[in-house]
């Protein structure tokens, strides 16, 4: 068991901490940094509730150690709104009723942002594929697809 000093930029803020090697990134974010918007739904990298961006890449933070993120930039749902303005994806989820219980929503939004980054104008099937690592039990996905389409349009403006 080894301890490591890590330095991670989370939503623009530099965070330093001594962490046990086995500390999962999701627990570091939720418990050490108190950013509880990132959730845990399955523990086995199937549901995507824990999705965050590490250096711009969407990953499942339940299957990633905090020490692996040393030196990286991490973005979570809490960093989406800038100066009180919602990110277009947040607007999209609200406008298109893309959420019900809200538990999958932060991960869904982060995965969607990563998708739009790579493919700013995705087709419906590309969206469905792009969010297929994120499970939602409530919405049946239709309105999530619409939310992503809303954001895509908004971001192209």
């Amino acid at each position, binding site marked *: 068991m080894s301890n490591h000093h890590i330095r991670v930029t989370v939503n623009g803020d530099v965070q330093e901490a001594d962490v046990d090697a086995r500390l999962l990134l999701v627990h570091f974010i939720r418990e050490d940094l108190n950013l509880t918007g990132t959730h845990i739904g399955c523990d086995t990298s199937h549901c995507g509730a824990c999705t965050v961006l590490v250096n711009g890449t969407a990953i499942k933070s339940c299957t990633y150690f905090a020490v692996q993120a040393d030196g990286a930039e991490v973005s979570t749902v809490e960093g989406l709104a800038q100066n009180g303005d919602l990110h277009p994806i947040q607007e999209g989820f609200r406008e298109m009723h893309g959420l019900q219980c809200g538990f999958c929503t932060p991960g869904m939004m982060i995965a969607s942002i990563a998708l739009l980054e790579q493919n700013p104008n995705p087709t419906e099937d590309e969206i469905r594929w792009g969010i297929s*690592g994120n499970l939602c039990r409530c919405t049946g996905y239709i309105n999530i697809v619409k939310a992503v389409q809303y954001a895509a349009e908004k971001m192209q403006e």
Partner: protein
Amino acid sequence: MIPPSFDYEAPASLEEAIAILGKNPEAKILAGGQSLIALMKLRLASPAVLVDINRIEGLGYIKEEDGWLRIGAMTRESDLDTSDLVREKYPLLADTTRVIADPLVRNLSTLGGNLAHADPANDHPATMLAYGAELVATGPKGERIIPVGDFFTGPFETSLAQDEILTEIRIPSPNGSSGGAYQKLERKVGDFATAAVAAQVKLGEKGVVEQVGIGLTNVGLTPIKATAAEESLQGKEANEAAISEAAQLASEAAEPEADPRGSVEFKRALVKTLTHRAIKTAVGRAQGGK
């Protein structure tokens, strides 16, 4: 689900990594972590030391050189997926990477990890068998080349030594009329194969099959090279009868076990169906189709 404790090392060079592995018989390489960390969280694996090779530069690349497609072991599935080179010239590889896991897992999981993990349910092994790939292992004495046929020694077992790192995967570059395809039945996105079949063909004059490779996924303790099927197709025109015969022989080569994904009978039949489809698509592609 909480993994057990371990020591963590993140060497900056291959030499260092190899040295750490050599010193610690219970050390394990951490690549994408998408198989290993899950096993640790389930406490099915408890390595004393994790050697994170993500910080070693130069292990992720996709390039053609000297008649080979060379892929660095740390190349992620997502990089394979977005590579124009792979998409245009290596359709079998492109097919395969597309049906592995989901977009987020694929951002991390590596080609090297997928092979080194040697899970009979993993998809790349069969594809590499069909391609006749070569694997480059780097150890204390430098590099050695392992033909993929010698790589998989058992379920979750390979011919890599404890202090060897898989560093490169080499796929022979296609020449002439070549084509390949991967056919997989999965229960949903992100699922491991119920069964899957990789086929790579090269057509000679008059559409005669000059070279063919067929690999089977998750119907045995290791990935299976369907040699009899390959031999039956070789030198024949790839017509319906020849493809059917090869498909039949491939299904006979499968050694599936019954599990909730299906009965033995079903899986055998499935191998036949998928082999048929894979060869047909591969031949179509070799003839210039998509």
